[in-house]
């Protein structure tokens, strides 16, 4: 039922990107997203697109798989393009009754579409090559300095990883309860909006109950194993930078500098 959602899912394979330290990937993704707002010229976008293309090739994730995840945001993309295309004032190059396209609008729309697609593709490369556990680990280490100002960094990371871990479980549970209620004659395909909302009650009540039950069980299991938060806690797989991570940081820095240069000179 839910197997069409590929956006933000981990793709199991082996590649340079998969083996990279998750901190590098997290910092890298942020740098990339910022650089997309730094560049202004078409040359800059071309550079960003090339960079992403190389990353996709390096990630060993099939291109088709990545693009399939884009389908979900196609609608959003279309709206943005239309608004920019028709509503930007400037030199008119095409007109049909009240619809007119301006030169500025056209270039703006193309840039906007490029920026949005690159943004989404760029961040999905991270989630496709990094497991949620690695990601929260990286986040925790990167945010460590915030502990000085009493931000519960470990607890936030723990909550995040639990939340992420529970998404597939709850999806499975939804599927199961849905089937059980369909077997009792429930109708989830009704077009009538009132009926549709009503039909969600037999689904949501058991789902919430099971979520609370699972949360309870998990809390109990954690306490039984003497979990008591982040203080003095060691890791089974501590994050350690190695040579390829430093190289990756260097490449990132170089990319970012070039992006800034394109903005200044092109």
């Amino acid at each position, binding site marked *: 039922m839910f*197997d069409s959602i590929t956006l933000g899912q981990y793709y199991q394979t082996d590649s340079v990107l998969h083996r990279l330290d998750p901190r590098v990937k997290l910092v890298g993704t942020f740098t990339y997203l910022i650089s997309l707002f730094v560049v202004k010229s078409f040359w800059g976008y071309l550079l960003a697109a090339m960079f992403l293309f190389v990353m996709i090739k390096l990630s060993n994730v099939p291109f088709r798989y990545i693009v399939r995840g884009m389908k979900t945001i196609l609608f959003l993309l279309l709206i943005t393009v239309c608004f920019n295309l028709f509503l930007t004032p400037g030199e008119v190059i095409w007109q049909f009754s009240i619809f007119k396209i301006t030169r500025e609008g056209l270039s703006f729309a193309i840039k906007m579409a490029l920026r949005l697609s690159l943004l989404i593709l760029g961040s999905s490369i991270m989630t496709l090559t990094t497991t949620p556990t690695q990601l929260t680990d990286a986040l925790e280490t990167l945010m460590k300095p915030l502990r000085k100002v009493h931000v519960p960094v470990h607890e936030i990371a723990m909550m995040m990883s639990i939340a992420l871990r529970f998404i597939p479980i709850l999806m499975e549970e939804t599927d*199961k*309860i849905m*089937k*059980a*209620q*369909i*077997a*009792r*004659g*429930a*109708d989830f395909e009704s077009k009538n909006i009132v009926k549709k909302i009503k039909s969600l*009650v*037999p689904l949501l*009540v*058991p789902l919430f*109950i*099971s979520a609370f039950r699972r949360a309870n069980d998990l809390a109990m299991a954690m306490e039984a194993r003497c979990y008591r938060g982040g203080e003095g806690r060691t890791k089974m797989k501590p994050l350690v930078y190695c040579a390829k991570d430093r190289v990756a940081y260097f490449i990132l820095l170089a990319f970012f500098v070039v992006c800034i240069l394109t903005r200044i000179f092109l």
Partner: protein
Amino acid sequence: MGIKVDDICFLYERGTAMQVRALDHISVEIPDDQFIGLIGHTGSGKSTFVQTLNGLLKVTSGHIYYNGEDIDGEKFDRKKLRSDVGLVFQYPEHQLFEVDVITDVCFGPKNLGLSESEARSRAIEALESVKMSKSLYKASPFDLSGGEKRRAAIAGVLAMRPKILILDEPTAGLDPRGRDEILGLIAEMKKERNMTIILVSHSMDDVARYVDRIMVMGGGKILYDDEPVKVFRHVKELEDLGLAAPQITYVMKLLKERGLDVNTDVLRVKEAAAEILAHRRELHV
């Protein structure tokens, strides 16, 4: 008429690297008024198989006929199928949601379009069938004990008056007493209501005492489909599948190996006792 399954296959995650063939060319006939045990190890495809029977999962290839009609046919009334073929899922108590037990049991009949009073009378009838005490009709389903919850959930399906009742691991997670209670109820329902019952389980001991016919599944195929005593003659092969014959069958086999000429085709402890006593003269004690 019953159900006729003709060469069905079912694939999970079709067309991806994770593709799994859960059902592999299954053909079988399920006539009316039979008590069937469907047995298989975890992952053998038994849950998938029963979900295809009432149309919850659409088969990848092949056909299923209910009373001679193809259930994937355009004119076929799937709602009718779902009320006729009742499916009780694993841990059915997780589907309870209403404020009290009787309203929850009414959910099924109401979905069939029955009036309030008729739904209620069917609910009461179903709750009586599962021996729910009257004092609990108005209790919240979440205040019941594990065994009571399960019986309430089974009543929820029973209230739709299915002609074929499928129970997927109805005894999972229950203590021995709760298990015997549920199995006893099911056997009684079978006698009273003359319906076909398919009992899905991985425990031979659960099933052997009650059913007329056993289907053994493994790797998405039906490997054995016969009377219980005949199926249990394949002890060795069943063990290779991660299953076992009932404990009493093992006792009888051991006795026979030690030289006591007993009949090993027995499934119930009482029969076994009678059989051993009949041979007591040969016992050297």
